[in-house]
């Protein structure tokens, strides 16, 4: 691996920058692997990286149907936070935030992680009570979260409108200072490069077509569009397409796939210092380092794999954005797109074993998986390597939907994970 540093930059400058090599190889898939990861998004690549780095398993392939960073990793709004309500969720998401804090150094790749603070707005008494409950729950778990009055929120985020003339005036906000954003492409590329350097094969343009099982039901291998691969362990990390892949092993998942839309504005000078979310009037917004305002809209109402949705969904969000930030009313929007998110009944992910021996799944991150990328990869790698869940992901098992131990963040946070 070519190490990135100021010195390397200088050295390559003298060579006219022609000496840079591709950041990962494009190997032909081998016939056998110790572990195969299906899905080359952030979570899958992170899983492969931690398998090689922490657990010494480097005979690993990551199979990606399209190209690295072309799925939900490149389609999300990059918000990172860990202010969830339940103990299990806080442990899971804060595990990720801690890894985010050291990720650029660990990968030797600038993922542009910026802890600029995430504020969640309260517009009515219910919001206020709910956010304060989150704040207290988080602080009991050692996770930072604090209450801001409306004028404190305005001081923290000057473009915010706190006038009483709004239809839903801002009456306060919860602030997680350790929350923020990261560069989503860099996360995929950084993990891919680091995993590749440790010997992981990253195979793009390779879709899984069948899962082979022996007479005892255990996994024996998979068929792909680039040949058959023998393996005893497969980790499926395919987000919106998880139901389709798991159906190859005759498993019916507690998942539904919805389009989630986002959009960016034309780039403007730095004006927006933090991340602002409003669950009640449904809007979230931050500014990328390129200057675009990154705006998250909601999911469409129906199951779909189209990676696009109805225009009324982003319009609804833009109405809220214009009310909250009148300064943005005349900005033009540049792009609008959708990603397919796999939503569980309790809006919490599934990370663990399946009824098929040798088949593992990491899915159900719904509308909020990006923030968990490093933690999700680390915990899933642990589960694959040791054949048992890490204490943090043990509650997020698949059979909680049989036993009734749901982690109901849906009711706790209403929307916008």
């Amino acid at each position: 691996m070519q190490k990135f540093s100021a010195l390397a930059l200088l050295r390559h400058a003298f060579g006219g920058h022609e000496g840079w090599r591709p950041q990962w190889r494009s190997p032909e898939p081998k016939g056998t692997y110790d572990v195969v990861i299906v899905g080359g998004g952030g979570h899958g690549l992170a899983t492969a990286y931690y398998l090689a780095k922490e657990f010494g398993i480097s005979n690993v392939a990551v199979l990606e149907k399209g190209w690295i960073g072309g799925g939900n990793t490149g389609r999300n709004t990059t918000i990172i936070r860990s202010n969830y309500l339940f103990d299990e969720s806080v442990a899971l998401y804060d595990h990720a935030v801690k890894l985010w804090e050291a990720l650029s150094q660990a990968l030797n790749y600038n993922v542009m992680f910026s802890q600029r603070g995430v504020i969640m707005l309260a517009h009515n008494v219910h919001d206020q009570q709910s956010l304060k409950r989150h704040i207290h729950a988080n602080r009991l778990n050692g996770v930072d979260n604090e209450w801001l009055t409306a004028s404190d929120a305005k001081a923290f985020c000057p473009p915010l409108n706190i006038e009483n003339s709004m239809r839903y005036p801002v009456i306060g906000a919860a602030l997680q200072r350790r929350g923020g954003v990261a560069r989503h492409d860099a996360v995929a590329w950084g993990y891919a490069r680091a995993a590749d350097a440790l010997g992981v094969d990253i195979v793009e343009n390779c879709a899984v077509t069948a899962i082979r099982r022996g007479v005892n039901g255990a996994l024996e291998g998979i068929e792909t569009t680039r040949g058959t691969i023998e393996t005893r362990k497969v980790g499926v990390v395919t987000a919106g397409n998880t139901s389709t892949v798991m159906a190859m092993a005759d498993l019916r998942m507690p998942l539904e796939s919805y389009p989630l839309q986002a959009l960016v504005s034309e780039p403007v000078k730095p004006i927006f210092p933090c991340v602002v979310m409003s669950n009640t009037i449904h809007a979230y917004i931050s500014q990328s380092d390129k200057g675009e305002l990154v705006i998250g809209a909601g999911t469409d109402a129906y199951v779909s794999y189209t990676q696009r949705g109805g225009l009324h969904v982003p319009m609804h969000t833009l109405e809220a954005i214009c009310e909250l930030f009148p300064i943005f009313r005349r900005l033009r929007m540049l792009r609008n797109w959708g990603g397919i998110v796999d939503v569980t009944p309790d809006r919490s992910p599934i990370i663990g074993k399946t009824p098929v021996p040798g088949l593992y799944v990491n899915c159900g991150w719904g509308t909020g998986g990006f923030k968990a990328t490093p933690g999700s990869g680390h915990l899933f790698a642990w589960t694959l390597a040791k054949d048992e869940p890490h204490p943090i992901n043990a509650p997020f098992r698949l059979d909680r939907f049989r036993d009734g131990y749901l982690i109901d963040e849906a009711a706790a946070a209403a929307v916008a994970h």
Partner: protein
Amino acid sequence: MLLIDCPFCGKRPELEFRYAGEAHIARPADPSGLGDEAWGRFLYGRGNPRGMHAERWRHLNGCGRFFNALRDTTDDRFAATYKIGEERPMVAEPQGARKA
């Protein structure tokens, strides 16, 4: 925005409707005889197919009635809408669809 053909009112914009999830999930005939595994599957298991999907819609801001629809989840085109209690119509699976 989808244009949805309500079997009672005709074609109306999506905003008049509420999506109501996968269709033809029958409540178990003998609930007390059911084990945890089967209950879990009934409550939470979903086909979520990449292809033709049978689903319920409710014409909330119209006639208020529920009905079923067949829609291709790879391009969101409706193949049919039909009344509750009617059989799922036979329509061709779209090309490249994968049954889940």
